[in-house]
């Protein structure tokens, strides 16, 4: 079959990103030809403002050098404008008469600046602010002329004005609306911004209506005249009154356009299925996006369809804005103007130059405007996208992420205040400087890209907020994050919930059937989705779904914890943290017999034997004669206890027995992530129940149950669930909560994050208020755990593949077979 031809009109960021995505998934599928009106390779248009302001050079903002096009085999016609699309003959014609035929056409023509229809708009010295040529013209003008007028006090206009001022011009900004950046700011923030810019030397004419541009003696523009007859001198006029999707070509060839080339969720034009459109020229569900992240999302979806994968739909994006004027911090997102049914939380300190407004509706953040202090912008934007209920954090919502303890390592939370050499990601040792460098040099725009390239925030994730801040400040203002529903992994576009729902609704019982039913992109998944899907199967359909050991991480396959040298650690179960002379003797003997190098007391009140050879594991388990501690599993780990009323002079309840009962009832319980419990016999809480997934605290009149604490990456104090009277109730409430978590938690989501996501109210409704529901959950869990095998002893039922403990030895040297090469030698190097 002949290679198909793909022609792209427009050589900008959205289009080229689409090609990059396409080349990733379907290299060689097309002969690709690109027409670009500008005589440049693809560059980062967002960074034109720093170039104008003299902070970066043109070379630094190139995203794809010419060599990239050559390496990818792409024919690039830079500096040739396409003037006609012939949909019947399926070819495009450029202004120099050259033609290119297409099988698929990708329109990425971007947008036009809106030029005010006033007399004099064609005079020399009147320009728009859109591309490298405009930027260059402004830089040149700044060296020769004195007075500049920028028409339009929006994002682009202010960036242009700031740049021209930085280059020494006297700049007046003309803005017809009542305050600056009215699309992104409310009146208070707009005025604060104006004051701050005036202090720097910009002049403003707010509400002024431009009537004409007047020429001077040399024919160049010399002044701007307003409706009221006044004039201001102008050697340079920059039109920055907005942009319009560039649909000239599309309209000329009969494609339906309405505020952009109208496309469907697969970015196909609704008129001609051979033609796709992405970027600022495309109108998706009535919106033409102008920010980079939505355009990249479009590019990704479009690429999968061009690549004949036929997957992925673009369903729209939420966006946020930041102004790229050094030293001025402002941020806005969502419905920042408020409106019917909304409430506002406002912090205003005009003298200090700080203003923040948060807009809430139905207990959710729906909009935010910030001026002066925007470090929490990315966090608010995240809350907004996720639609998370904020009742529990409402009283300190205004004070930002650092005040709810959700910051990076060492309590660092203000990315801007950090030095380049400061470590952002403590897990992988990545500094702020390294992250910023990668963002700039590799042109990264999303959190995922930063994770892949730098490893920052790729391990424990506690520095995610910091990395998002760095992205926002480094990649330029048009930061907008990924869609709120995150795909489970690269093998699917479905999120955790969708996969889980499908397993329940369609009674899916094997990993394979899930992949087939949900059209997985890969034949057998990846190391991210296989363990997740396997967990969803066994937790949704206990006793029915087939556990797949090859879809489990090594620790759960070998029932021990792998160590950095490939040896393992073994932790036997000690009910409630109590042991005996017999057990200790056996442990000592095992340590001697198998020459185990390290024995360590764990935080969960047990003993850890480290450095066991894999071959020795079954014998070690046998000789220990103690149950598996599941210290290696996403499962119930320990129930930590204090000595309680049996011994302690302060003890009010028998916490040790309560702990043993809980542990015996819940052990072998697999869960989305590890689960740790603790029981204290009095409120002094020696068992540290306040930082456990379920903590039980004895008081004189009964037991208090707290949930969703965490002592790990980020210390989280557990929240009060209920107070009960009897030990049986403790079992029922704890078990029911954990069963709810097993059914609703996403794989690798600890209880603290699960409860954050669904809200404590939801958990209380299901566990505290609904007695029948609670009992049902508790029974479900008991049913699931009943008769579950101990993997250290019942190998067959626990599906422990014993072959893994035995290395294969090659046959003796004499048995070498001189087999001739054959057609079967597929894997031959």
């Amino acid at each position: 079959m002949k290679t198909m031809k793909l022609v792209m009109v427009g050589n900008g960021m959205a289009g080229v990103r689409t090609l990059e995505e396409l080349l990733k998934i379907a290299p060689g599928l097309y002969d690709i030809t690109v027409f670009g009106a500008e005589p440049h390779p693809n560059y980062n248009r967002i960074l034109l403002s720093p170039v104008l302001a003299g902070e970066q050079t043109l070379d630094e903002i190139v995203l794809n050098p010419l060599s990239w096009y050559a390496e990818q085999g792409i024919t690039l016609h830079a500096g040739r404008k396409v003037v006609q699309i012939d949909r019947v003959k399926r070819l495009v014609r450029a202004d120099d008469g050259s033609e290119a035929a297409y099988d698929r056409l990708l329109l990425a023509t971007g947008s036009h600046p809106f030029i005010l229809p006033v007399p004099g708009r064609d005079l020399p010295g009147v320009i728009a602010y859109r591309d490298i040529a405009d930027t260059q013209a402004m830089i040149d003008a700044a060296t020769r002329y004195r007075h500049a007028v920028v028409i339009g006090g929006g994002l682009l206009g202010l960036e242009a004005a700031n740049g021209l001022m930085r280059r020494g011009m006297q700049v007046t900004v003309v803005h017809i609306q009542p305050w600056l950046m009215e699309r992104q700011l409310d009146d208070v923030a707009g005025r604060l911004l104006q004051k701050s810019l005036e202090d720097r030397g910009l002049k403003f004419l707010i509400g002024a209506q431009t009537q004409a541009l007047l020429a001077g003696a040399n024919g160049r523009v010399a002044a701007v005249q307003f409706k009221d007859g006044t004039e201001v001198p102008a050697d340079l006029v920059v039109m920055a009154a907005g942009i319009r999707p560039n649909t000239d070509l599309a309209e000329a060839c009969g494609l339906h356009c309405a505020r952009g080339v109208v496309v469907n969720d697969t970015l196909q034009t609704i008129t001609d299925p051979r033609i796709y459109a992405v970027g600022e020229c495309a109108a998706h569900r009535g919106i033409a996006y102008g920010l980079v992240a939505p355009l990249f999302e479009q590019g990704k979806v479009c690429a999968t369809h061009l690549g004949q994968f036929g997957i992925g739909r673009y369903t729209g994006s939420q966006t946020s804005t930041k102004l790229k004027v050094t030293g001025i911090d402002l941020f806005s997102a969502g419905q920042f103007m408020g409106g019917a049914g909304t409430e506002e939380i406002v912090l205003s300190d005009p003298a200090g130059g700080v203003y923040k407004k948060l807009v809430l509706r139905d207990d959710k953040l729906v909009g935010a405007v910030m001026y002066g202090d925007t470090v929490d912008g990315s966090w608010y934007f995240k809350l907004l996208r996720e639609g998370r209920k904020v009742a529990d954090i409402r009283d300190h919502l205004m004070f930002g992420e650092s005040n709810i303890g959700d910051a990076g390592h060492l309590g660092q939370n203000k990315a801007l205040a950090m030095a380049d050499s400061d470590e952002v990601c403590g897990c992988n040792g990545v500094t702020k400087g390294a992250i910023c460098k990668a963002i700039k040099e590799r042109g990264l725009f999303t959190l995922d890209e930063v994770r892949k390239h730098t490893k920052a925030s790729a391990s424990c994730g506690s520095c995610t907020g910091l990395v998002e801040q760095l992205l926002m400040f480094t990649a330029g203002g048009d930061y907008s994050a990924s869609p709120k529903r995150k795909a489970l992994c690269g093998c699917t576009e479905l999120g955790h919930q969708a996969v889980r729902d499908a397993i329940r609704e369609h009674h899916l019982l094997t990993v394979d059937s899930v992949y087939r039913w949900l059209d997985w992109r890969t034949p057998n998944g990846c190391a991210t989705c296989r363990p997740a899907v396997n967990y969803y199967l066994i937790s949704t359909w206990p006793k029915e779904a087939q556990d797949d050991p090859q879809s489990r991480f090594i620790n759960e396959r070998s029932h021990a914890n792998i160590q950095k040298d490939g040896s393992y650690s073994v932790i036997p179960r000690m009910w409630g943290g109590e042991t005996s002379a017999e057990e200790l003797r056996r442990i000592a003997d095992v340590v001697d017999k198998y020459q185990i190098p390290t024995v360590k007391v764990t935080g969960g009140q047990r003993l850890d034997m480290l450095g066991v050879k894999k071959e020795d594991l079954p014998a070690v388990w046998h000789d220990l004669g103690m149950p598996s501690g599941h210290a290696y599993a996403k499962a119930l780990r320990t129930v930590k206890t204090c000595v309680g009323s049996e011994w302690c002079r302060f003890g009010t309840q028998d916490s040790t027995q309560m702990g043993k009962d809980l542990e015996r009832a819940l052990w072998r319980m697999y869960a989305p992530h590890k689960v740790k419990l603790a029981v204290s016999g009095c409120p002094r809480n020696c068992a540290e129940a306040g930082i456990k997934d379920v903590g039980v605290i004895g008081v004189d009149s009964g037991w208090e149950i707290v949930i969703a604490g965490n002592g790990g990456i980020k210390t989280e104090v557990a929240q009060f669930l209920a107070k009960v009277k009897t030990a049986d109730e403790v079992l029922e409430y704890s078990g029911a909560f954990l069963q709810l978590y097993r059914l609703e938690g996403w794989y690798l989501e600890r209880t603290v994050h699960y409860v954050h996501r669904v809200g404590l109210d939801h958990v209380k409704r299901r566990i505290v208020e609904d007695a029948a529901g609670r009992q049902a959950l508790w029974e479900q869990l008991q049913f699931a755990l009943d008769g579950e095998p101990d993997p250290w002893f019942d190998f067959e039922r626990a599906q422990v593949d014993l072959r893994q403990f035995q290395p294969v030895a090659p046959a003796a040297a004499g048995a070498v077979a001189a087999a001739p090469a054959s057609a079967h030698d597929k894997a031959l190097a």
Partner: protein
Amino acid sequence: MKRWTPICGVAEIPLLGARRVQRERGLPVALFRTAEDHVHALLDRCPHRGGPLSQGIVFGTAVACPLHNWTIEFADGQARAPDQGCTPVFACKVEAGQVFLDADELATLALDLAAPLAGPCRHATA
């Protein structure tokens, strides 16, 4: 000319799993079995921090290292981008359900690579 030496049956390797082949000298070789019953052999050592690849999760034509989740391709032993690194590949063939490795490679390839150390022995050698 390769000196093919029989190792084990394909069926002795778990589907989408691995087995380790002990060598007289040097680190073990990991045998991987894909969903299509192809068998591949790599040195049992991740180029990143030396993790035992035989203990990883096998998917498609690659394995995810159990220590830090680098993905190593069977065909060339290369780490999947943006990670960089390469682990030695061993010639491997399957005939009539039997897996063969090259005796010369088993005896000589990648003998210089050692497993990472952990625990008290690190102080003894330091």
